[in-house]
């Protein structure tokens, strides 16, 4: 095996380790996301908005875009029937911002195992973004399911 191929394989294995760590966290988020969906279903937030949030999370390269989007919706909801109802939007902002500590743990663990790519100073932020996407993906799926159940 040439040096170049070995390097490529090593890199692929490192990325797989990261992907596994993100997948494990994602599974952990499912229950909490379901609770948020249950709260959200009791508001006037509709499917379009939740899909909009999911699309934004999937396409942006910034966590701040996601939290800004939510902050704007909370701020504009003067009747407090949607994202501002019973603090759901604020709780979600706090929840998503808090995922940074999970991202930090994942990256620190990779670093402690000597993964070279984990030295990228932007990795923690990128993992945070991935975790936000995962959380919102679960939230959107549960929301759609609950909405369909209600309409049945």
């Amino acid at each position: 095996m040439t040096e170049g191929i070995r390097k490529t394989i090593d890199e692929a294995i490192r990325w797989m380790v990261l992907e596994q760590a993100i997948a494990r966290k994602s599974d952990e988020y499912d229950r909490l996301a379901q609770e948020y969906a249950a709260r959200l279903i009791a508001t006037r937030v509709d499917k379009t908005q939740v899909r909009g949030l999911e699309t934004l999370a999937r396409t942006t390269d910034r966590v701040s875009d996601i939290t800004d989007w939510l902050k704007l919706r909370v701020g504009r909801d003067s009747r407090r029937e949607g994202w501002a109802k019973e603090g759901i939007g604020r709780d979600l902002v706090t929840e998503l911002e808090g995922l940074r500590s999970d991202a930090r743990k994942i990256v620190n663990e990779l670093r402690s195992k000597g993964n070279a790519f984990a030295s990228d100073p932007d990795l923690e932020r990128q993992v945070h973004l991935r975790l936000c996407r995962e959380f919102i993906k679960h939230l959107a799926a549960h929301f759609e399911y609950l909405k369909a159940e209600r309409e049945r």
Partner: protein
Amino acid sequence: MSELEYLLKRKQSIAAWSDRWQAEAARFADRHRDLLPRRITNAQLYGLGNVVRSARRYADIERFIRHQAEKAERAGRLDVQEYWTDLKDALGKLRGEAQALPKTLPLPAGMDHQEALDDLHRELARLYVQHLIAHSLYQASGPKES
């Protein structure tokens, strides 16, 4: 560095900067929370957002903010004038940030340095204002919803 490589690295650097500076923009909004939403209205903030999004040069943003400060001064609303002056200073300081980013991001050959710097400054100002508006509206809506 090829132009494509430059654009990709620029995008990633700006994304990282934006996430890092969201807290700073939120602190600016917090420092001026007493003015929201009556002295500095949502309409004024949306107006600022529109100008920042459509500006072709950083000077256009600065001109708008200076104009807002002058209007407030003429109306004797010194607290509002101070808000706009503080914002002009905060956004002006982002020039230093715009100068620092390309140190890790050498420009491709043939790209005008001053123009690239102005573009970057305008982009950072746009992101700062996006965070500022979002946090201002969020904070003005009050912490206790029912």
